[in-house]
């Protein structure tokens, strides 16, 4: 997947944060929810259609300690998972 793509969160999906910085993503259309660790919450908030995947990876490296060497793989996997669930996508530009 190209690092230049700018993923964007599905605005229907709800981020429910808790006191310990963990959170859940809740899809009101299906009732499904799944848990996010603090790093995933940080990434979710950057899915605004303005940050490329490369930007997001850079932000993770800047803001967290002990970031693993293969952070790119983890970030891409996480975003792909969100896209497969319908929780995120890419902005689509109409031709012409």
């Amino acid at each position, binding site marked *: 997947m190209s690092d230049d793509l700018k993923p964007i969160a599905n605005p*229907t999906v*709800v*981020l*429910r*944060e*808790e*006191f310990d910085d963990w959170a859940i993503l*809740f899809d*009101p*259309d299906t*009732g499904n*929810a799944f848990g996010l660790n603090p790093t995933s919450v940080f990434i979710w908030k950057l899915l605004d259609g303005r940050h490329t995947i490369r930007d997001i990876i850079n932000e993770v490296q800047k803001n967290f300690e002990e970031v693993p060497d293969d952070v790119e793989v983890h970030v891409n996997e996480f975003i792909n998972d969100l896209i497969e669930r319908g929780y995120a996508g890419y902005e689509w530009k109409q031709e012409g």
Partner: protein
Amino acid sequence: MRLMKTPKSIDIEITNRCNLRCRYCSHFSSPGDVDRDLPKEEWFRFFEELNRCAVMSVTLSGGEPFFREDLFEIIDGIVRNRMRFSILTNGTLITEDVARFLASTGRCDSVQVSIDGSIPTTHDSFRGEGNFRKAVEGIKHLQGHGVPVTVRVTIHRQNVMELEDIARFLLEEMGLPGFSTNSASYMGLCRKNAEQVQLTPEERSVAMETLLRLNRKYNGRISAAAGPLAEGRRWLMMERARREGKREIPGGGYLTGCGGVMTKIAVRADGVMVPCGQMAHIELGRINRDSLLDVWQGHPELNRIRQRRMVPLSSFDFCRGCEYINYCTGNCPALAYTIIGDEFHPSPDACLRAFLQKGGRLPDERILEA
């Protein structure tokens, strides 16, 4: 149980008006029982706040929610604000159009319809003539449109001997996946009609035994958070712990009977926030005037109710010398309030020792074995 940053769900009494006057309704006696509905615009504003607070679901009750002429618009407001919803209803106003609308939202978790009998005579004895037929029709409309429908059976003196027929009717004839049970509690209109409505210790014993047996027969399709089925399970566990000399059982020995205030909050029909619809006398603030987040995280009265679970049963004269003290949870604070005027007290209605002293008996515990 940990406190959530914002409530996960909200119970909203969307109206106090109702087309029925069931003799054990928990309403029509509280400070919030006003006869004027809050305008829908007020609810829309509040739903926007719920959206910002990431609340996941709303339960609409009443009164009778379908009595509100603008209920569809209110539900649209919930959907617009990224939430799901459930409805508690008497079922009599659910038409084909209502069921079709609910299905079209794609956000309805459940509609809970009250059914108290297997035949009209029993159901209508306390709910009014013709209402069994209407409620059953309502359920069929919901089923026809694939709306998840559940049934609540309120057990009282007129239907306690009919539980077997009720289970057969609901689970076999109506084809429901399950139903839940409670018994008429000493609240609202039931307080005036307690003699006619509330189970005697003997009837309570029959209800416990019958429901535990039926639940086994129907593979766990009968549920209960309160009332004879829940009591039967809990009290048998407490009796076994006493006999085996266990030091305690989880949650026992303190006022841990209800954890609802850690995950949800309620709003009366007049827009006043309360810890629970059954504790409508504890006013925490007003929607669209007071911030939900401030109330949820900082209201001293709400925090006091949450601290209830730290209160040991050994501090009550009522519990002195009780063999079950380390296994008991004190049960429902709202019921403690309606019976003795103090929610920081064990509910006398849920006292196993008192039940046995009044001639009640526990079922044979082998009934719990698979």
